[in-house]
């Protein structure tokens, strides 16, 4: 964008300064994770005296019953992965039949999915809890404080955007492809699983990224459905629970935060291209 020599240098310097400013909070997390409580309160900007403290702090966090790191990580992974698999499969199926069925009912249902994207979580959250409790009373299926309840909630909250994204993509797939398969003797459902589903890979990645980042980081919904400090906790819940119990113990809080960030940073390093692309696609909804 900027091309002459002098403004080039200015741009270079400005970028480096902003880059350092943007990433310095993360550096602070790392260096203060490697300190004792005393060291942190003495001077948070100082380089740690002994990096061995980092491992001592990690062990403390690992063993802390408030954060229960291994179990929280497992819950977060399980909830995110199962929600994504179900969302991608159900939304792709639904979007396909909605695209390929040209009736008023079909477009009505699609319109309903799109319109629901306006509904903010806040208007749904209180009655949702009452309603999930009534379902348990009626059917005996426990939904609050369980994986099943959590995953069904993410299905509900993620389905609108997911159907919308798949719908847009499937519209561009030529119908001739399906007709040819039908003539060759493919049954209706086989057309989807054998012909359409494999073509959806790029949009699967986009939808998974969009939902994955949101579900992984979500705090309010797990807080309501799982509750803080119960058997099943996601990582954000666990961190918040830990901060509540160890107020101002910044050395340990920083270690907890570091451990909470590591999984997503690792994912980002491996799937950077897809993540950026997916999140950009989501902005145009």
């Amino acid at each position, binding site marked *: 964008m900027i091309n002459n020599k002098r403004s080039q240098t200015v741009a270079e310097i400005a970028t480096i300064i*902003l880059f350092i400013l*943007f990433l310095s909070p993360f550096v602070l997390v790392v260096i203060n994770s490697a300190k004792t409580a005393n060291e942190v309160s003495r001077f948070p900007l100082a380089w740690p005296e002994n990096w061995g403290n980092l491992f001592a702090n990690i062990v403390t966090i690992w063993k802390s019953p408030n954060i229960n790191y291994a179990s929280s990580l497992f819950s977060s992974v399980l909830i995110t992965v199962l929600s994504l698999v179900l969302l991608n499969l159900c*939304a792709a*199926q639904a979007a396909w039949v909605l695209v390929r069925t040209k009736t008023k009912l079909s477009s009505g249902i699609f319109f309903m999915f799109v319109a629901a994207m306006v509904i903010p979580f*806040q*208007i749904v959250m209180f009655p949702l809890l009452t309603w999930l409790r009534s379902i348990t009373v009626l059917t005996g299926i426990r939904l609050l404080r369980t994986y099943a309840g959590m995953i069904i909630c993410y*299905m509900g909250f993620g389905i609108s955007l997911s159907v919308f994204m798949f719908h847009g993509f499937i519209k561009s797939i030529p119908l001739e492809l399906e007709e040819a398969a039908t003539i060759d003797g493919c049954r209706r459902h086989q057309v989807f699983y054998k012909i359409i589903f494999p073509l959806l890979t790029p949009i699967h990645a986009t939808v998974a990224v969009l939902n994955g980042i949101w579900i992984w980081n979500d*705090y309010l919904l797990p807080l309501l459905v799982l509750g803080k400090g119960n058997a099943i906790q996601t990582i954000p819940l666990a961190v918040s629970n830990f901060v509540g119990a160890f107020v101002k113990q910044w050395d340990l809080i920083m270690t907890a*935060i570091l451990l909470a960030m590591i999984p997503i940073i690792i994912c980002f390093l491996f799937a950077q291209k897809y993540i950026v692309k997916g999140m950009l696609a989501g*902005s145009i909804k």
Partner: protein
Amino acid sequence: MNSKKEKTLIFWLFLAPALIAFAAIIIVPFFMGVLYSFTNWTSSTRADSELRFIGLENFTTSILDPAFSYSFGLTIVYTVINMLAINFMAFVLAMLVTSNLKFRKFYRVGFFVPNLIGGLILGYIWQFVFNSVIPSLAKVNEIFASLGLPENLMLGNRNTAVLALVIVGTWQYAGYIMMIYVAAIEGVPMELHEQAMIDGATTLQRIKTIVIPMVAQAFTVTMFLTLVQSFKQFDVNVSLTSGGPSVIHGGLPIFGTELLALNIYNTAFLSNNLAMGQARAVIFFLVLAIVSLVQVYVNKKKELEL
């Protein structure tokens, strides 16, 4: 089975899981929510037996409650400042990382990273920065001595605490919005720039006459995106300020940095008034619905112009 029947069967079979989840999690609670906002809904365990319609009482009480009107006003102020700050920062970043820098791809990734981490954790990191790191600068040099005084803590004063929320909000979203601008800027044909440079246009002139008009479409997208994001801000609010410090408003001590989403949550759980919280959530929804309608209208108009 004939093909028409099969088609109908597959239509419903394929749609069923999506529709059931959607109806159970969104539609039913949504209508329950609207209904409950007109009742005296309090304790969820014995709600059915004593539920009584009380008309618009929850709404009128909410509007007359200084804590709510304050929170509403604060949210609008925060949203406007946050929206401008994010978009300004994002545009500057986008201009920088689309220029001829050596490591521009690397910088882009760095600016984008905060967006990957949840608002809750970002808020805790910045609470540490504002409460411990910045005051500790007083030990570095006399010039910063005043930063060490407890009364100068950023989160201890309402105005600076709101500024702190904006700083964290900007840090969180600028990299994401930057990526949207980068995509738009890279869509501008290089020939336009070359021609303009041959004609002797300066960098600033080119930004004004080529880049800004070409990325105008992106501006509409990012403005609405950041508006809605800021208006819904909850996680950072909880972990950074939890609504504090308190201020006197309408003669009552109330939370000074309690944004609407947090106010709704606190009304229901802290003050144990579910129906009132629900009424506020309905107002919250109406505002967002109007914003969305405006957005659809603006986009339609833009499309017609093109």
